């Protein structure tokens, strides 16, 4: 056991850095610095995806035959780390990280040929139709119904918290095709066009005054059965496949370390009566406490990578990372507003719009602090709330 970094990994990191240095445009860099969410401004994120795709790096985690890179687990992690360090806007995940993997694992060859290239080049912009007003944590209770009619399904119901539905031209959705038996066993995974007759999209304004999510209504929407992924009533398996595919796929520690370093610099600028806040023992104690947690998470994530590299299932460890990563992100954003005091209360969302060229009131580094703090409260809710995640650990890991 050691922490030595092989030469070829160092060289790979250099290659990635050089590429980022050369290919990031000023607009994309600016958008990356203004990010206050896991979702970046769409225009710049898609422009960045195009640049990455031209290089063949838009979906490093996909198998090579489908347009992936064939990189090792470590290489993929290095790549992800460098993206975060360079503060690139995160790519929109619904196609590349959600629908794509589902199709790779469970789609027909025809579906793969039709959709995967268009996910990579951005022609298809996907949204995820999972949650419903009555089905959040208890996702399997979903009610949006798809009734068979000839070669089609006719869909009625509604989906909510559908991120970027107002930008999307495609949706992958879980719909109910059987109302009897165990709820999980009557669900089907469907692909559909967002411009179909009968679909209405209602944007939802968030408490940060940004619209990321929508509610989508289906009124007798006709979708060909050929758009089904996997077998009828077996959509839960497709959805679960995604979880396996993504296991350990997301690393939080690199981004948290970037944030912490920024906070440290901010604290150096804040004057208390005894000198800079960064020298204040109370602040140091708080900062160190988060730093220690992030270091622990970094190595938890490394243990996962190590297991995956050895072809093993990281099991329990990966169940932890969503909880730890999201709650530490929340802690970090909280530390940032606590470091900034009243300056974080200045509210100027118009200055966060890329290219707005709106003069910033107060220190520029304070601009994203409050929107990010507020937006990050969603992290412990979406993608399986942290209560659900703890339930999984209790049940599946501890056997309770």
């Amino acid at each position, binding site marked *: 056991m050691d922490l030595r970094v092989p030469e070829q990994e160092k060289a790979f990191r250099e290659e990635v850095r050089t590429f980022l240095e050369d290919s990031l445009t000023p607009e994309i860099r600016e958008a990356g610095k203004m990010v206050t969410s896991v979702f970046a401004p769409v225009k710049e994120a898609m422009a960045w995806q195009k640049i990455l795709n031209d290089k063949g790096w838009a979906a490093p985690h996909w198998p090579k035959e489908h347009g992936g890179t064939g990189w090792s687990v470590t290489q993929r992690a290095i790549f992800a780390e460098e993206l975060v360090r360079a503060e690139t806007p995160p790519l929109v995940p619904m196609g590349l990280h959600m629908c794509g993997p589902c199709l790779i694992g469970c789609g027909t060859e025809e579906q793969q040929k039709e959709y995967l290239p268009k996910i990579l080049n951005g022609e298809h912009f996907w949204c995820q139709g999972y949650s419903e007003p009555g089905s959040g944590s208890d996702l399997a209770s979903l009610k949006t119904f798809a009734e068979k009619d000839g070669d089609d399904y006719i869909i009625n119901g509604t989906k909510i918290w559908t991120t970027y539905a107002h930008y999307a031209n495609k949706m992958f959705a879980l719909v109910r095709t059987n109302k009897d038996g165990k709820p999980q066993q009557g669900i089907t995974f469907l692909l559909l066009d967002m411009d179909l007759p009968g679909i209405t999209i209602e944007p939802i*304004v968030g408490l940060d005054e940004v619209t990321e999510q929508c509610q989508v209504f289906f009124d007798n929407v006709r979708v060909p059965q050929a758009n089904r992924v996997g077998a009828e009533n077996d959509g839960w398996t497709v959805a679960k496949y995604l979880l396996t595919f993504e296991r350990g796929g997301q690393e939080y520690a690199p981004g948290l370390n970037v944030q912490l370093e920024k906070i440290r610099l901010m604290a150096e600028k804040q*004057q208390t009566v005894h000198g800079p806040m960064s020298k204040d023992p109370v602040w140091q104690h708080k900062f160190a406490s988060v730093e220690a947690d992030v270091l622990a998470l970094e190595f938890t994530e490394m243990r996962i990578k190590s297991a995956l590299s050895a072809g093993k299932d990281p099991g329990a460890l990966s169940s932890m990372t969503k909880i730890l990563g999201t709650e530490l992100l929340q802690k970090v954003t909280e530390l940032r507003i606590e470091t900034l005091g009243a300056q974080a209360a200045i*509210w100027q969302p118009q200055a966060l719009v890329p290219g707005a060229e709106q003069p910033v009131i*107060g220190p520029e580094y304070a601009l994203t602090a409050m929107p990010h703090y507020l937006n990050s409260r969603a992290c412990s809710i979406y993608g399986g709330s942290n209560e659900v995640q703890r339930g999984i650990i209790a049940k599946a890991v501890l056997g309770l």
Partner: protein
Amino acid sequence: MNFQLSEEQQMLADSAKRFVRDNHDVEKHRQNKKLMPLDEATWGQFAELGWLAVPFAEEHGGLGMGPLETMVLLQELGEGLIMAPYIATVVLGGGFLRHASDTQQAETIPSLLEGGLQLAFAAEEYERVFTLENTAMKGEAQGDGVMLNGTKACVLNGDHADQLIVLARTAGQPGDKDGLSLFLVDANDEGIERTPHRTVDGRQGAEIRFSNVKVSEAARIGELNQAYDIAKSVLLEGLLALSAESTGSLAVLLNDTVEYSKTRKQFGLPIGKFQALQFRMADMFIAMEQTKSLLMAATLKLVEGHDDAAKAVHAMKAQLGRAGRKIGQEAIQIHGGMGMTDELNVGHFVKRLSAVDGLFGNADVHLMEIARSA
């Protein structure tokens, strides 16, 4: 010991309750939070109801009440998220006017009581952790007056204010309690440049730049270089008022969360039946009640002039910051996605509490003040 409201206080609470019932709804709040001119109609109602007169002496046309009545009034208004600049103009502004000269009082108080004058306390500065003695903005002696140069940040009601109460360093260094002076200046004086901005809670603040602003001796409140005690006593009242208003917010967040948990069903049960959530809501309740207790401790000690009154106020502001964070975060989490929307009450109250914690020193600052006062 008697924690019952007097008849007069009860009437004040009842009128505030009615006002909130008639005037608060989230839709109105959403409309109001755009950067807007002062809501003159609401302010006019405040004047008619006599609320602007609460802390002023009877000889000045006031009601001769104090922090207790302010607490009663603001707790109720806090439940309605009423965005009138009451604390800036009446509590802080009015507090400073008590220490002002007869001329200054005569020129301001009658107009203020009628609802025709707005005030703001320009105290915070960029990149300086707020305590009064950390003030750096310079006021340099010039002739029989002082020349102000520098920038004040996040000045509540700063853009609406007709007059500003400016805290400046006229001697010594940041960290010294000596060397601070207060000035009452016309907000439209030459050399004063205001940049209004919204604050996260939908209210309005301003950055205020002073470039060679000459203020005469007559504009000073209190003695030159000796303003610390006045500023501290008024600030303590301001902190009490902020906290009173915010305990109203805590109550709404707790109540809305508990009610939501009774109706929201997942896994076949109202989520409020899950013990994990019950424990967390019980903790929210405890945090809220502890904040109310400290609010009473601080208010009563201040009103009765106890030695440890300042310590109690600092304890309250620290507790408010921590309880506000905890209750706000839990309220969002237990509401799930709905808690993240602009549509429900929750987000608006959470944003108010987030702003309040940052203002005039956050929980960390006030815990340190307790430690120093020991």
